[in-house]
Structure formats: structure tokens, C-alpha cells
């Protein structure tokens, strides 16, 4: 047997060959559409009509468009409310269900159920819960807490709050699993040592658990920030295609869809708003990076 009869010789292009399929997918379905969006944002393109170069017109229009500012405000508000909830509540939940007691598996599964439910089903359930003649309002009225139904779905602010509740409810179980994995890695000896030193459960939570799962909290924060800035489904299903009365609960992705799709869709303008959403996300990502700097070293 000679060495030649084994695997063929590695040539310089072998690694590229392995990389090629993945690279082609990324180039074709992520990078090229992104570059295309940047180009389109400087044109007045519409559906089925190639546009001409209009410079920064689309961006100027966005900054002068009250709808854009409402949508930006809603997106940022969504992020500011939803992210802290999704970082802290699943951690609390994970600590609760971490205990090895009989029947805890049931609770873990129950908390995870909303994650696997389809967004449409979740939307329909919450609609039924929150409508003016829905479960919550009926209970409120029976208890004489309100005289008029609470406009959970027909008032822009309440609609946004309702959508946030749905996002948080759906995300609880998902991020709880992340935290369960992180909690499993916290050495039991640390807790034992602290307990011997007289630290109670609350003290141990803040002095041992939280520092140990901090990297995971940052990861969860980032993931939930992405989903918060991209929120669309919850508002669409709860508030209809106008995005609440007068479109007052529209977020940036909602606005992009509204101006960019359909037969009179303004592709150029929608692309410009997409780029602005991208920049907004970038700002939050840089902020996140700054926060995490100390932990990376």
C-alpha cells in the first residue's frame, strides 16, 4: 500500500469548495438582498417599475413623515419594555422550576407550551381574552371594576401594551430554557459555601446566581432586543392591518410592510425605512457591546 492510495491530495481550493455552498446561500439570500435594499433606498422604485436615483429624498421624507416617528417611538418603547421583562422574568421562572421536586416536569412543559404554539393561534386566544366582550372585560364587569369595557384592542396605547404582554408571555418559556442550561452550570459548591457563611436564598440569588448567569442574561437581552425591534405579528393579529386605530400602534416593520408591499408599494421608500431600522438596531447593538465590554476580558 502506498500513501497515494489513501485520501486524495489536499489542494489549495479544497477549503473553498467546502465553504462554497454555505457562502453562496449567504451571498444570495442575505448579502445581496441587503446591498439591493441599500441601493433601492436611494431610488424612487415601485413594484414592477425600476426607479431613478433620487439621492437622499427617501430619507428626508422619512424624517418629515409623522408616521415614521410614531413607528420609531413604538419600536423603541417596545424594546425598552419587553427586553427587561424577558431578561428578568424567565430567570425567575427558571430558578423556580430548577428545583428537583416531583411533578416539576409538568410545570416546565407548561411554561414552554406558548413557545411551540403558532403565532396565529396565540393571537386568536389573546384576542378572545382581551376583546371588549372577552374574558378579561367580562370578569371586570361582573366584579363591577369597570363600567365600560377596557379598550385593550381598540386604543393604540393599550393595543401596544397588549402586544407586549403577548410577546413576553410567548418568550417566557423560550428564555427559561436558556437560563435552565446556565443555572445547571453554576457549581453547587458555591451555594453550599455561601449557605455555610450564613447567606440566605435572596442573598445567594443576587451574589451567586446572577453573576454566574450574567453572560446568559446578555445573550437573552440581545435575542429579545432583535425580536422586539422586529415585532409585527402580535400587533397585526391583535390590531388588524391598520395597526391600531389611526395606525397609532404601528412599529417600524409594520410601516415597512405597509408602504412597501401591495400593488402600489413604494419599494424605494420602504427600503430607506428598512435601512433606518437597521441603523437603529446597530445603535442598540453597539450600546449592548459597550455594556458587555467589561465581561469579555
Amino acid at each position, binding site marked *: 500500500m502506498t500513501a497515494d492510495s489513501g485520501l486524495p491530495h489536499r489542494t489549495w481550493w479544497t477549503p473553498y469548495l467546502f465553504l462554497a455552498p454555505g457562502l453562496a446561500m449567504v451571498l444570495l*439570500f*442575505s*448579502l*445581496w*438582498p*441587503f446591498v*439591493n*435594499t441599500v441601493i*433601492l433606498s436611494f431610488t424612487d422604485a415601485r*413594484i*414592477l*417599475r*425600476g*426607479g431613478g436615483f433620487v439621492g437622499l429624498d427617501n430619507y428626508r421624507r422619512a424624517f418629515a413623515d409623522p408616521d415614521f416617528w410614531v413607528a420609531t417611538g413604538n419600536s423603541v418603547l417596545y424594546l425598552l419594555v419587553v427586553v427587561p421583562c424577558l431578561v428578568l422574568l424567565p430567570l425567575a421562572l427558571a430558578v423556580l422550576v430548577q428545583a428537583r421536586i416531583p411533578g416539576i416536569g409538568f410545570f416546565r412543559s407548561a411554561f414552554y407550551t406558548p413557545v411551540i404554539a403558532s403565532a396565529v393561534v396565540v393571537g386568536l386566544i389573546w384576542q378572545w381574552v382581551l*376583546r*371588549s*366582550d372577552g374574558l378579561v372585560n367580562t370578569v371586570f364587569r361582573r366584579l363591577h371594576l369597570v363600567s365600560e369595557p377596557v379598550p385593550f*384592542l*381598540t386604543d393604540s396605547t393599550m393595543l401596544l401594551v397588549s402586544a407586549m404582554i403577548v410577546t413576553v408571555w410567548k418568550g417566557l418559556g423560550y428564555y427559561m430554557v436558556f437560563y435552565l442550561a446556565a443555572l445547571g452550570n453554576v457549581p453547587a459548591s458555591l451555594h453550599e459555601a455561601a449557605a455555610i457563611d450564613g447567606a440566605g436564598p435572596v442573598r445567594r440569588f443576587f451574589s451567586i446566581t446572577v453573576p454566574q448567569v450574567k*453572560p*446568559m442574561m*446578555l*445573550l437573552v437581552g*440581545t*435575542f429579545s*432586543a*432583535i425580536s422586539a*425591534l*422586529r415585532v409585527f405579528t402580535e400587533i397585526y393579529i391583535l*390590531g*388588524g*392591518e*391598520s395597526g391600531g*386605530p*389611526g*395606525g397609532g400602534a404601528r412599529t417600524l*416593520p409594520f410601516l*415597512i410592510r405597509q*408602504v412597501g408591499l*401591495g*400593488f*402600489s*408599494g*413604494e*419599494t*424605494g421608500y*420602504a*427600503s430607506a425605512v*428598512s*435601512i433606518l*431600522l*437597521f441603523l437603529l*438596531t446597530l445603535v442598540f*447593538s453597539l450600546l*449592548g*457591546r459597550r455594556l*458587555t465590554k467589561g*465581561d*469579555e*476580558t
Partner: protein
Amino acid sequence: MTRSNPIRTAVAALAAGTLMSTAACGLGGSGAGDAKEAERTGKVAGGITFRTLQLKPTFTGYVQAVIDAFEKKYPEVKVNWEDVPGDGYNEKLVADAQAGALPDVVNLSTDSFQLLGDRGLLADVAKLDGDTAGQYVPGAWEQFKLPGKGDSVYAYPWYVTPEILTYNRELFERSGLDPAVPPTSVEQFFDYAEQIAARSGGQYSAFMADPKGRLPGDWQKMGVPLLSPAKDRFTFDTDKAVEWVERMKDLYAKGAMPKESLLKSDDINQLYGGGKLVFGPGSPGFVKDIKRNAPQVYAKTQVAGAVTGRLGHIGIYAQSLGIRKDTEHPDAAAEFAKWVTNGPNQVEFSRRATIYPSNAQGLADPFFSDRGDGKDAETLARAVGADQLKSAALDANTPVQWTNQVGDAVVREVQKAIKGEQDARTAVKKAEEAANRLLADAARP
């Protein structure tokens, strides 16, 4: 080092996430529509593609029989039928148009017809087949002309679904109204709704608020001029339009409409079928659905002619068959489209679905004038719908300038007023300004 992994993953995920969210919006923006117009050769032959909108599997037998009969008549033609589901139908059309891959004969809705016709992607069927015009009911043929494009017609009219009025007889009586005297004007409709709200005790509502579904039809029926005579700007900012918004606001506050129906109208069947709504949707197809899903409410359902107000007639909304402008086989495509939309084939289709022929000979079939004993809602709906179609006219249609975006912009302002967040006059003024801005944008070369 291991501790930093989730952080790095997080930063990478954020970058990838934002990239994906932005990239998803990158729609192709290339121009389309400079295809060379096909001309007839006199030889009906060749392979053509026929695309329909969600007819399989319910109507597979019918469509296949129509195709088979055509292929028997013209043995040199081979029809390749493709059926596309309703979800994403228009998006697929746009993608195919951009790729230059439109089918030879394609089922178009009003908005897809306007887009493809406007972009010069459809053949002028008046030129291909001018003699056919007389076969269709008045208005149906004219519906497929486009503003600024002369007498050219860009599609063959296919089936029609007229507007009718459906209501729950029992709830009507309980509200002190006479079921034999349905409302005929928008103002009267609102008066009825007010009486219903006053007597319902919150048990049921009169109608769905759904401003997107009510406009611009209600304004046209009230005599509000939507467009200037030159059709180059909207002119609906009138006292009548303001009055409409004020009445809607008042009725909404009084509980004449389900609160959520201001934003969504997708549960109308459920509400009407559950006996919680007096006025049902205005389509004959709905009557059939109610018969199947809520027989008890069906028994109480009364059918009448649509509210037409000052117009006195309904609009005409025909589905259509467009021919690809640069089709390789214009003779086969035109003959096939004419075949599908001829009298006998349309009548046969109407017997299987709750639709009406746009073909005059087809509509004259006794099937459409039979009122039975005058008590069965489905039979009555068919007769009432067909009767109204005979006088339907285009001035009751939503004008092409009232695009989906214009509708959305108007509805947003109106919703705020109905909710009491701004006054009616400001809402109508702002709606007209927004609509005119969109119209000017769309008119830019």
C-alpha cells in the same frame, strides 16, 4: 474565555438578525413591461398556460371539462392548467411579471389587473378580438379599460359577485323595524342602526364598523364627489363626508357596531351566525355559508337589494382573464379566454359556485331569475344579485385612483375620528390631503 462566548454569539446574532430583517425587504426594482405585442395569425394552435386562483380541488372537474372540450374543438392546442392558492397569488404574479414568466391566460382580480395593465404587460383584447364586446353585460367590458389608454380593453370579463343586503329578520323586528322595508340609502341605514343600538340592550350590534370595507362606497352612495372632473385629485372633503364620519362616530359610541370591528372585520360570519349582528355581509356567497354553518340564523335571514343611495345601482366587480402581451400563441390564448367566459360555460360555473356570469346571454338564463317561493334566502339572493347586475354601472365602482394605500390612509384618519381622537372635519381634511399626496406620488413618471 468560555464566559465570553454567549456575548460574542449575541453580538454576531444581533448583526445577523438585523441584516436578515433588512434584507427581507429587498424587493427587486427592475422595470418591466416593454414586451412586444403579439398579433393574431389566424391559426389556433400551440401550447398555452392557464392560471387560476384557488379553484382546485372544489372546481377541478368543471375547469378540466372546459379545457377538455376546448382541446377537442381545437386539437392543435394544448392547455396547461396551473392553479395557485389565494395566499400570495398577487405576489406570485408580481414575481412572474418581473421574471417575464406570466402565464398566457391568467385570472386577474381588480387590483392585479390594474397593475399589470398599467405596466403594459397585458394584451389589448379589444384589438385581438373586438367583436366579443357585445357578449358581456354592460359595464363588464368597460371595466377593463384603463385611464389614459383610450378604447383598449385589457382583459376578458369572467365571473361577477354583486353586492346585496342581508339581515336577521328576527332582530330587525325585535328592534321595532319592518323586515319588509329594508334601508335604501346610507342615511336610512344609519337611522336603522341607531334604532337597533337603542333597543338591543347591548345584546347585539347593527353592523360592522370596518371603514375600509365601507369606503369609498358609502360616500359615492351619498353623492360625495370622490375625484375632480379631470380625475387628477381627490375632492371628497365635503360636508356630506364629514356628516358620514360624525354619524359613524356617534353610532360607534352608542354601540351600534362591535368595538373591535373598527379595526378588524374577519369575524363577521361568526358574529352574524351567532345572532349577534343584524346586518350580514353583502355577498350572495355569504348566504350559502350561513346556510351550511348556522342553519338557525339562515332561517331568519332576509335578502334585499343593496343600499345604493343616490346612485340607484350597484357597481360591477368582475374577475377577469388577461392575456400575456407577448404570448407566443395569441390566437389560442384569445380563443381559450373567450371559451372560458362564454355564456354556457359561465352559467355552468355559476351553478356550482355562488357567482354570476358577466356574459349577457348567461345572465339571461332562467336559473338567475327564479325566486322560488320567495322565502329561501339562497334562491332569493341569487335572483336579487342577478337582477341588480342588469343595471350595474361603473360609476359605483371604486375608482382606480383609490388604491389600497389611499384606502389605508383615509381609513387611518377616519378611525381616529370615530374613536374621538380628532374631530370629523379635521379627519376628512387630513384624509384628502394624504390621498392627494399619494395620488401625486403615483403620477410621478
